[in-house]
């Protein structure tokens, strides 16, 4: 996309930028995202969580790891306060993402409310897509374009969630289990893709390795021990290894 001149851009109505953002949300990464939310819909059906609340979680939470922690935790009987802590910890990675992407989304005259609304849509896929698409959008059009992009991605994901829910109920045989595997496999690949330093690999190994050992922990704190415990172990182990090296 060639960036139009700023004077042309100023004459373009806000709604048009929103529509262009919506159009920008139809892409290959969006298709992968759609498929993973179909998997999440399958998980909802599998554990018996109401589909309406599940689709709402896609809109409001808009972070698949947090959603899977929530639904998986409810299914295994984790107490709600422990779940809230686990969800909160899993959301920390959104903070640096928002900090990194806001300068691109902000437009010329930043307003706090607009920024907070735009920030709601920040998640891994939007983060990647924003860096690909927003530099080609003139700064006046960026907040509505980002909003359109976000709404498009969230909308497709909400549709995926609902479709996955009803599909799992109607799909017999290996295809139903294939749907359920979508969530763990896409998370595994994301973890591997984002792992760069020793500490990342250690965190994956400790988190996954501790998980089966702490199943059935008192108070339903399995995720707390494997996540916070495993992550902390990985952090200190990596620092020790660096010091030795």
């Amino acid at each position, binding site marked *: 996309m060639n960036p139009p001149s700023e004077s042309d851009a100023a004459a373009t109505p806000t709604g048009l930028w929103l529509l262009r953002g919506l159009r920008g949300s139809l892409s290959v990464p969006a298709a992968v995202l759609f498929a993973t939310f179909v998997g999440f819909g399958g998980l909802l059906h599998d554990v018996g969580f109401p589909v309406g609340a599940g689709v709402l979680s896609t809109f409001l939470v808009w972070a698949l790891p947090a959603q899977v922690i929530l639904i998986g935790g*409810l299914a295994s009987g984790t107490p709600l306060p422990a779940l809230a802590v686990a969800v909160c910890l899993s959301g920390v990675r959104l903070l640096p993402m928002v900090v990194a992407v806001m300068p691109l989304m902000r437009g010329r005259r930043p307003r706090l409310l607009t920024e*907070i609304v735009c920030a709601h849509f*920040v998640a891994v896929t939007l983060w990647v897509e924003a860096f690909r698409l927003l530099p080609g959008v003139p700064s006046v059009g960026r907040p509505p374009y980002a909003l359109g992009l976000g709404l498009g991605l969230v909308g497709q994901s909400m549709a995926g969630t609902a479709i996955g829910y009803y599909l799992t109920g109607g799909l017999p045989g290996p295809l139903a289990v294939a749907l359920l595997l979508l969530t763990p496999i*896409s998370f595994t690949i994301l973890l591997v893709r984002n792992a760069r330093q020793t500490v990342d690999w250690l965190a994956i190994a400790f988190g996954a390795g501790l998980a089966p050992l702490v199943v059935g922990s008192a108070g339903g704190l399995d995720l707390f021990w494997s*996540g916070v415990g495993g992550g902390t172990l990985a952090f200190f182990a990596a620092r020790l290894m660096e010091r030795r090296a």
Partner: protein
Amino acid sequence: MSAVQGELAAVLIVILVGFLPNEVWRVLGVLLGRGLDENSLWMQWVRAVASALLAAVVARLVLTPSGALVALPLWLRVAAIGAGVAGFAMVRRSVLAGVLAAEAVLILGAWWLGIA
């Protein structure tokens, strides 16, 4: 699922236990803006915990699943995940290739064993 009694309770849980604790970070990100050192020790620990948490969730879903995946033997579930990582690593680090490889192993395995 004893914690969820009906749609309204589920909606409240989504808002109080899902939305609010997660959204805090997005709002904080806006408020803190650029005045944040991504490489501080604190942020390194936070990232390690976030990765371990996600890995633990995956391990739970694969090793001790609660639903229909139980019907498949453990080795097949682990083999499918392994095939996914291998597919991703070998085909230009493509997420799609990894997902397809994992699903192919799972579906063929389930079909061959005559399960599900």
